[in-house]
């Protein structure tokens, strides 16, 4: 029993030492919460991959098929914002907010 208690204590201390602070704002002001390093990188990696894959396919198709006669897609950004919900025992969800920007340029600029 004492061993279980000590192990929990150690786990808590480890968790305390290696967390990533997530900063949010609600009606009452700035709120901070920590999530573990591994959870952050896993979740963030998944979210980035999902948003990224959803963007690259249509952007690539748009560039290849050339739907627009006078415009050319030259670059695009895939931005991911995060929004978390905080419960009594910490962060209960981390949701992604994707944002995509496409940049076109007139084709004749290329020659000029």
């Amino acid at each position: 029993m004492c061993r279980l208690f000590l192990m929990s204590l150690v786990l808590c201390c480890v968790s305390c030492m290696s967390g990533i602070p997530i900063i949010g704002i609600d009606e009452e002001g700035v709120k901070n919460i920590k999530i573990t390093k591994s959870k952050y990188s896993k979740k963030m990696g998944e979210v980035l991959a999902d948003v990224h894959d959803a963007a690259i396919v249509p952007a690539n198709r748009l560039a290849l098929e050339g739907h627009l006669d006078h415009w050319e897609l030259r670059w695009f950004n895939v931005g991911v914002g995060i929004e978390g919900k905080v419960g009594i025992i910490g962060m209960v969800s981390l949701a992604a907010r994707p944002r995509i920007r496409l940049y076109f340029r007139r084709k004749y600029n290329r020659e000029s």
Partner: protein
Amino acid sequence: MGHFHKIFTLSNCLIVILLYLMSRTAYSAMPKSWYDLEESPKQLGSVRWEKPSKDFDKEVDDIFEAQGDSYDALLQESNYGNLKSLNGWELSVIRSQLALTADGVLGVLALKGTVAAELRWFKKSYIKEMEANYDLLSTDAAHATLSMDMSDTEINNILAKIADKAAGTGRIRDRGLMLEGLQDRVNKTKQMLFSVPDTSVFPFSLYRLRLEIIFGASGRALPFMTAGGDVRIRLDWDLVPSRNNIIASKPDSDLLAATNDSFDGLVTAFSQDMGVLVKREPFGSKFRVKGFQIRIAQTAGGRVGVANASGSLGCMLFFKKNRISRAKSMHYFDETEGKAHFNLIRFENQQSAEKEQDSYILSDDYMTKSYQSSSSVTSIDRSKFRKGLEKAENIARYFIGRAKRVKNRNWELREIRTDYQLSLAGSVGMATIGGFGELRIEYAKI
């Protein structure tokens, strides 16, 4: 005995839960002197460098490591991430941003409208061109680039097209009013830019001036964004190099002792003072100071100074490092030590205006009145400002040093940007949320 055992187990559980909750709210803060600024000149004593705690070092390392790991995870999880090039497209850079709270906690910002990570895909053949213009294009605002050698007719044609487009969206009722507002701001800026002297012998030079103007539904230019359907316009003035060479290259004594209230004096002062950033170069083996940006504003009485505000107040000045020897740039830096002051313009009502914008849509008139009644001017001692810059440079060095420690298979640190704020006493510190600050880190794919 059994009863006692249950109570003991229950109390253990409660202690563990309590410790867990405490661990969720235990943060290592940045040294207070890095961000908490002295507002009274009397308080500004010697600028002693305060070392961060080991816990804060670890927290920063953890953040950088977790970011690097998540970018590696992206490449593993994605169906397309491991392809070196996809039909000419290349995932080239990831930009992330961190925020600092008023308590000194650095972390990832989870806030509607902010981006925690941004992936940039370039068409391979245009990577150089696009990267050079990335900052110019990276905005939600409609934008146009103007230069000093454009005629009035050329400029007016561009502004008319912008006003047409805005009116076409149905978000601006009075196209004429908007065009008038645009022309007024552009003409005033053009006059200011004609007074810019040659600063090529100083450590830095002004190369771009950015105007960000927010228009309300009526077509009137507003000082802040409202919760309504504002139209944001970004106009970049690029200084043509030949224009800068009109004035003789050797600065006269008036130029060296930059004055208080003029735009040219302010530009000259910053071109000199930022020499602090050149004194101790380089940042390790690879990193160099690239440039800096400063928001300036003008009061109703015509006084020009650094703006302590966000929104569309004033304009942003972009400086880049001059390609001259360090000895030459330090010569003028030393000569101007302790000379003159510059202004800090504060907009007192900004926060109350921003608070209210959440609860209801502010009228154009309210926003304009709020702006007109809110500015105050403080004179900043340039020698104190230079000391503040030394601290700012040390903070930048700290973050570069920590970020460089992270070894990553696929990504390498490319650029770090830190935002600073200026106090009434001339001290400089990291900007916090609630202000307008952030720390941006860019990783490039290896």
